[in-house]
């Protein structure tokens, strides 16, 4: 095909300009974020410090500086906090291992067949088009007590007769992994799609075996994709409470931070505890993300 006109180098052109129009563009969105993102966060912090109204009913709290709320929730929910991060880490790694070959195949190997590439991408995001809850429910049924999977496992004596699959950490982690695979595959694909294959040829030209070309060239170059993929997967998993809830794949033994926040907020109406847990989850994620981004040298992701 002919050279397309849109690949100009960015020299003196394309330098961001200064103009007052920018205020008009920024203000509505910024006001929105201020009102509904920043102030709610402040609300969350003040709520996390509230104290119960003396002699008040359920869900009645007054402003206060109860820093003890934090100590209380850490003591009370240490197990769920640790579990959240362990599950999220395992599920993220599993999703990465599952997605990388697919992303590589679509982004690099299938490059010469754009139609096939498009179709496969559609398949990757297809799970997005059906309700998250319906998908999770489907797994619940498939892993159910009398499902053929359970029966198969019982018949082959991997599962004892009185054991259930549902409610086990394995099934919860499986569900978490499944639900967030597209979040991992897409950024990986976007990155690998831009991989310059002549670099791979240069690698093999310079006597590298395919495996060492992969570890020395492909993998390091795909790090930005891995970083955004792992972040996009880890963060929602750490806060998820659908998969691990009793209505779906979990049991009380697999409750995660999200489940605790949900039940404190929406059921017990212990707003301060729920808020304290939320603030801690957010703080932990911000710290983890900034360390992670710095470590992998992908600050420009922001």
């Amino acid at each position: 095909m002919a050279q397309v006109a849109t690949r100009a180098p960015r020299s003196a052109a394309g330098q961001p300009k200064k103009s007052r129009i920018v205020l008009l563009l920024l203000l509505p969105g910024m006001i929105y974020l201020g009102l509904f993102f920043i102030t709610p966060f402040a609300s969350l912090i003040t709520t996390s410090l509230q104290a119960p109204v003396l002699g008040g009913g359920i869900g009645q709290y007054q402003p206060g500086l109860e820093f003890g709320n934090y100590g209380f929730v850490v003591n009370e929910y240490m197990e769920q906090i640790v579990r959240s991060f362990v599950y999220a880490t395992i599920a993220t790694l599993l999703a990465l291992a599952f997605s990388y070959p697919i992303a590589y195949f679509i982004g690099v190997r299938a490059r010469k067949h754009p139609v096939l590439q498009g179709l496969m991408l559609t398949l990757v995001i297809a799970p997005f088009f059906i309700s998250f809850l319906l998908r999770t429910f489907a797994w619940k049924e498939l892993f159910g007590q009398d499902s053929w999977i359970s029966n198969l496992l019982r018949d082959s004596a991997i599962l004892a007769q009185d054991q259930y699959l549902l409610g086990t950490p394995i099934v919860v982690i499986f569900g978490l992994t499944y639900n967030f695979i597209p979040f991992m595959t897409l950024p990986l694909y976007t990155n690998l799609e831009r991989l310059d294959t002549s670099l791979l040829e240069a690698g093999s030209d310079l006597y590298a075996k395919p495996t060492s070309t992969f570890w020395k060239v492909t993998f390091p170059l795909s790090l930005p994709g891995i970083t955004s993929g792992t972040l996009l997967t880890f963060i929602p998993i750490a806060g998820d409470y659908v998969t691990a809830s009793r209505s779906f794949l979990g049991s009380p033994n697999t409750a995660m931070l999200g489940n605790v926040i949900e039940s404190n907020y929406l059921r017990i109406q212990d707003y301060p505890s729920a808020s304290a847990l939320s603030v801690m989850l957010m703080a932990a994620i911000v710290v983890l993300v900034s360390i992670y981004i710095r470590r992998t040298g992908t600050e420009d992701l922001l």
Partner: protein
Amino acid sequence: MATEFVARGADLELVGIRKEFPGFVAIENLDLKIPAGEFFALLGPSGCGKTTTLRLVAGLDSPTKGKILIGNKDVTTDKPHERPVNTVFQNYALFPHMSVLDNVAFGIKQRKVSDPMPKALEALKLVELEHLAQRRPAQLSGGQQQRVALARALVNRPSLLLLDEPLGALDLKLRRQMQVELKAIQMEVGLTFLHVTHDQEEAMDMADTVAVMNKGRIEQMGAPETLYERPKTIFVSKFLGQSNLFVGDVAESNSDSVSINVAGNKITVPTKRAEKTTGKIAIGVRPEKATFHEDQAPTSAAGLNIIGPGEIIDIRFTGVSNQYLIEIPQIGKVTVFAQNVGKSPVTELGAKVWVSWKVEHSFGLSDLPAENGEGK
């Protein structure tokens, strides 16, 4: 908008232009006047400030200091869409979502000119592309895209047409062809063309006047032949073609000629061709103006510079000429081009030779080569 559009070109005048970007000065202090109807080339290596100059004229950037006048009207603060100026962009910048015809008609539609479509078609005829009017830019070849970009600019009948390396993306053969066409179109429409390029052959081939730009300043300006025959600075002598340069203290100087002494060799330049006549100066000669002599030194005569003996250390066959690299002790390497007329004596590597050229072909420069031995 009260922009006045004229059917013929207008003068362009830059007065004391300075342009700073965060961290560096792109243009130091530029004064330039381009008469109406001229084909003017701004020539220089990348980063010399030539594209910045173009963008200032187009109004895409504004100068830190100075004034821009088009047809004696100050347009310094005018927005790009208010200036009677059009640009043929480096990679053409054709709108990918519009047909070729819509691309060409864009400017005249914006100006609410009557009958935009017939006019756009006519412009496409001028570049012989009317049969592709309904295509999208991506369906055209590089050369065709270039011509659409030209038609899109010309249809507006701007006072001044800016060409930003318009041929840079084309292959050599197409480039030569487009150079001829571009020049023909300029003659036909009679507009003022300001052409920015790093290709010296292109500039010399097409332009009436060439300005050589370096590090934000114009080093020398003039007709292509003058620039080539009589470069005034080291940079111009090397950027436009090749040069052999010799540096020495002035030994003799009168109203006719200036001579320097280089390791016992006397090298002379006519005074009227010398920028500097005292102290340490550099004298140069073009490789094709020099000849070499085997076996014995040519008899010295007035009006002839002779250096040597030296040894041929490299011979290159380029087709039209043979290029000889000669190492002369204490002077350095000298390049000599000998035209390939099929009967030149067979000279071999290692041959002992003398080099000579007519004094009238010497040129004296205003500055000295950098000390790092870059000079040949």
